[in-house]
């Protein structure tokens, strides 16, 4: 009886402990893995490529902007918003440990920025390639 009581207490402590973790904090690797899963479900998906990601990052697509328009050609350096001039912290995780640690933020910014740059959402392949590139950028 005592053991059962103590065990349930431990379970309670464990559950409360989990809930107290910062919401959804992940590593860039975990975020890449979930994009991988997404990509695996789409036809014609290939292994993510940093080279393809870099080309995508620097190219203008449907609109006047590329990713580099705000994040610069060097994602390990601070950027600047193309319209407002507001400073943007470096995008490469090697230079900014906060990047790609919140799935909510990652989803929000891919949605917004792909819409601005490409006039559409990005495919999981494109997102995976870009993240592979960003992870390869050294500080």
């Amino acid at each position, binding site marked *: 009886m005592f053991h059962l009581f103590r065990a349930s207490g431990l379970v309670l402590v464990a559950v409360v402990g989990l809930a107290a973790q910062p919401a959804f904090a992940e590593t860039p690797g975990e975020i890449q893995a979930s994009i991988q899963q997404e990509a695996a479900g789409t036809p014609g998906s290939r292994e993510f490529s940093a080279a393809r990601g870099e080309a995508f990052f620097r190219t203008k697509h449907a609109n006047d902007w590329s990713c580099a328009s705000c994040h610069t050609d060097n994602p390990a350096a601070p950027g600047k*918003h193309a*319209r*407002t*001039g507001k400073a*943007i912290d470096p995008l490469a995780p090697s230079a900014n440990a906060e990047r790609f640690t919140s799935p*909510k933020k990652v989803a*929000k910014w891919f*949605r*917004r920025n792909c819409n601005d740059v490409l006039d559409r959402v990005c495919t999981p392949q494109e997102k995976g390639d870009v993240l592979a590139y960003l992870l390869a950028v050294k500080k």
Partner: protein
Amino acid sequence: MSIKDQKLFRILAVALLAISVMMPVAQADDDGRDEKYGEKYSGKYGGENRGKPLQPAQTSARFRQECSSCHIPYAPGLLPAKSWRKMMAGLDNHFGSDASLDAEDSRKITAFLVKNASNRWSAPTAPLRITDSNWFKRKHDDHEINPAIWKNPKVKSPANCGACHPQAERGDFNERNIRIPK
């Protein structure tokens, strides 16, 4: 004066008083330039006046986080509630950029903006650009600010409040605190 005349006199006096109360109060700061900025609605700047600065206790971490990625977090008191509702309903095309939020953030930030919107805006207007409001135009016209200042790369654009108002993020635009960059 007959009783009839006295009565008429009293009616006239009341009517005169009523007219004087209803007449718009002259708001000219110095040289009547305010006329240019509309007198249709009561209150300063034709009813398009910004509110009092936000007190630190009224700020919202969610608002600051979500609305300062691309620009400074513009103080809610700079526009009326109607403007903020319109703004928040059109975030997917926010001055040409996608600034969309998820439903919960959108709802909570809208509530914050509406609650702290300008309390001195009596006109039915609801501009989306702060720079389109009468108070802004009047306070930044050529009489107030040498047009050359706008061309300074450190100023860049009228949307860059912080260039000359270092306390802008707190909603403080007090003239004593203005520092125009050289």
